[in-house]
């Protein structure tokens, strides 16, 4: 049985779009085939993540990190976990070359903005001799989270998530392309909604 370690890099708890994606992928993994663990990042982690938790990551056959884009990169809370894991795992001879996937969403309509983030993650994998597989980058995070749950509209998302499951199941080694999925709502409308939201926030701030 293969060990799958999910890392939930969102701090929004049950409201997180990332959690919707994580649950969707997790539901596609047959219990008889895979043993899954879920690790949630912590807010303001003053102490290092526990050795037991880092061990869970290190023994995984596949690591699936699901998180939101933050200032075009990785949120500090997730970065802390990756740094702790790096310090834990570097130099250890018995590390597994786990398959690594990232599932990232952002508020921007165009998911291509995550290009550099992918490079950061590839660098991380190279340092620890982890087996970088591919990324799924989704624009319009909350819209994507709603779409994932909607039959017929969620085909692109389901296809991408299925690709992760199939890749793990078959232990593929051939390099695959990343997935960039735009929200189903056209970009001009997304930008209009964003502008309205920002206007509302500014008005509320001015009243205070």
């Amino acid at each position, binding site marked *: 049985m293969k060990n799958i370690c999910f890392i939930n890099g969102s701090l929004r708890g049950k409201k997180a779009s990332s959690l919707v994606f994580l649950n969707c992928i997790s539901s596609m993994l047959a219990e008889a085939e895979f043993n899954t663990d879920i690790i949630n990042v912590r807010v303001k982690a003053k102490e290092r993540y526990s050795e037991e938790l880092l061990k869970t990551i290190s023994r995984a056959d596949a690591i699936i990190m699901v998180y939101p884009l933050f*200032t*075009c*990169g990785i949120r500090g809370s997730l970065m802390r976990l990756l740094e702790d894991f790096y310090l834990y795992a570097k130099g250890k001879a018995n590390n597994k070359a786990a398959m690594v996937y990232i599932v990232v969403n952002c508020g921007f309509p165009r998911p291509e903005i995550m290009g*550099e983030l992918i*490079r*950061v993650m590839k660098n991380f994998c190279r340092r620890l001799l982890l087996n970088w597989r591919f990324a799924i980058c989704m624009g319009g995070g909350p819209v994507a989270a709603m779409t994932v749950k909607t039959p017929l509209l969620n085909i692109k998302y389901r296809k991408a998530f299925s690709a992760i499951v199939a890749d793990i199941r078959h232990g593929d080694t051939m390099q695959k392309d990343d997935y960039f999925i735009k929200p189903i709502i056209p970009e001009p409308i997304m930008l209009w909604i964003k502008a309205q939201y920002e206007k509302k926030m500014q008005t509320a701030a001015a009243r205070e």
Partner: protein
Amino acid sequence: MIGYGNDIDEEEKSTFIDLTRKHLGEADIVHPDFDKQVDVYLTTCSQDSEAICEAFKKHV
């Protein structure tokens, strides 16, 4: 902006520079109105300091 890392390789170096330079304004790394006045460097040792200072002088 100057990054530092004493054990980074060329790809990590270029990732940092590209990430910072490309997304300066959008990422709120600096104020969006000042993103044209910023350049990015990365040093791996103190021997780079002189070259960075020379480059910095061009901005002030």
